[in-house]
């Protein structure tokens, strides 16, 4: 040691005069510290691969379930939106109504708000159409008079307005019957509403689950790094400095979980693609399922990342305070 004496005294003296850190230095080293922290956090996860993988899988499954349900609901609602526009209200006029009255009804129908178009089908034209299409043409010749009523086909502007229109049309005089052809669409819409609410409830419950899982993982990480935290606090590390690596760990868990969830969802899409195409083919439809998409992927990462971050934040806030140098 004696050999290094002169050297070391020199270095101590040089430093004792001190050098103030410039703001640029601080910013550069702050950024460097963030990068280094991210790297150590990732490294620590790799050092316990099984534990990390389990946590990531739990997060991935918790994200996949509501996301898959969401995609299912969206796909079905897309399917129904194609049929929405063909929702029609059939209005049958009482038999024996005079032409003037029928014309009047037509005008009344056109006057209703929320009506896109009104098409008149006279009893005569309806009979001819039926003759042509049904194949009973020759049999119908033996009828004494036309059994079909005059009718209107009303196209509502909005599908959701249809029930209100039906009620209004029923009030018009000389109307025999009103039929909403797409009543089942309404039921489907209600079901989809329930589905969407279910997505929210499931998402909230499983999101909370992810927060707890990440929180618990971070709690264990904090306990295993207790000595380090104590020393860092003693040499002047701020709370933010101590918190940072754990927040990065939580963020990484959330992001990796979301990534795995995206892979699971994409595989699910491929798996269902064949049968759905076949089913659509049976209905002569061009329909095919739409997957997560880029926007959905970014959204999934955003949700996963923030849920992981929140879990880490809660755990860190609760447990770091308890570690005090002694």
């Amino acid at each position, binding site marked *: 040691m004696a050999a290094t004496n002169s050297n*070391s005294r020199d270095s101590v003296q040089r430093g004792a005069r001190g050098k103030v*850190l410039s703001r640029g230095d601080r910013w550069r080293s702050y950024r460097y510290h963030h990068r280094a922290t991210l790297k150590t956090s990732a490294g620590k996860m790799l050092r316990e691969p099984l534990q990390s993988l389990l946590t990531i899988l739990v997060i991935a499954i918790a994200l996949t379930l509501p996301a898959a349900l969401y995609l299912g609901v969206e796909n079905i609602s897309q399917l129904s939106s194609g049929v929405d526009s063909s929702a029609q209200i059939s209005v049958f006029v009482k038999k024996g109504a005079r032409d003037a009255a029928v014309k009047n009804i037509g005008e009344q129908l056109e006057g209703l708000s929320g009506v896109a178009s009104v098409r008149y089908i006279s009893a005569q034209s309806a009979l001819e159409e039926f003759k042509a299409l049904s194949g009973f043409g020759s049999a119908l010749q033996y009828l004494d008079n036309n059994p079909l009523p005059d009718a209107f086909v009303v196209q509502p502007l909005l599908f959701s307005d249809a029930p209100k229109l039906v009620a209004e049309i029923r009030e018009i005089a000389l109307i025999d019957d009103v039929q909403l052809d797409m009543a089942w669409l309404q039921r489907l819409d209600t079901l989809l509403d329930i589905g969407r609410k279910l997505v929210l409830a499931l998402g909230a419950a499983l999101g909370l689950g992810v927060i707890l899982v990440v929180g618990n993982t971070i709690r264990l990480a904090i306990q295993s790094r207790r000595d380090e935290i104590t020393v860092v606090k003693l*040499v*002047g590390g701020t709370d933010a400095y101590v918190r940072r690596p754990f927040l990065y760990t939580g963020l990484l868990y959330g992001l990796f979980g979301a990534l795995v969830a995206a892979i699971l969802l994409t595989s699910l899409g491929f798996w269902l693609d064949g049968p759905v195409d076949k089913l659509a083919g049976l209905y002569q439809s061009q329909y095919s399922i739409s997957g997560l998409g880029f926007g959905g992927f970014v959204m999934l990462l955003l949700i996963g990342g923030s849920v992981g971050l929140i879990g880490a934040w809660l755990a860190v806030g609760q447990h770091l305070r308890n570690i005090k140098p002694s």
Partner: protein
Amino acid sequence: MIRFDNLSKRYEGGFEALRNVSFEMEAGEMAFLTGHSGAGKSTLLKLLMLIERPTSGNLLINGKNLNRLPHAKVPFYRRQVGVVFQNHQLLFDRSVFENVALPLQVAGYSRADIGRRVRAALDSVGLLDREQQNPIALSGGEQQRVGVARAVVHKPKILLADEPTGNLDPQLSAEIMALFKRFQDVGVTVLVATHDIDLINRMNMRIMRLNQGQMEQDGVNYGGY
């Protein structure tokens, strides 16, 4: 530099660790703090590190009253203080270099600065060639020297040591003390808590003796037990 003004510390449960302690240390002064175990040495150091807060009385550092320092400012105060622990508190999951670099990283020094200062500090304790080793591979005396390097790497104004030679043989203890003396020579205020009477008698320095929480003796000519 350091001024204790009628300071008392009572722990929860009623134990009075320090009673009306007053003393002053000039900048660049070195002193030993001694007394039986339980006399209050560790409590006094903890107050200086802001691990504990006094029950009554004032503690002034450089004219500033530490009682009024808010929690968020504590880390920045600690960056002006270097501490050497009896159990050295080294982290065995990283190299000697990284252990010593910790106070600089925490304070946001640049990588180049950290490299330069850590090597200077390791050089000053004679361990420059060990920087890449894990501290667990070092002997007790070497570990304690790494602890010293970490305590001085950020050029603190105040250096505190709590039983720094507790587990070392006399020759290593003397080396550590000589090291502290060198830091005092360059203007650092050094306060060493120890019960190694033989060692401090030989060093001919100011000695403060605590007894049951009270300052029993304070002076250079120490009579010993």
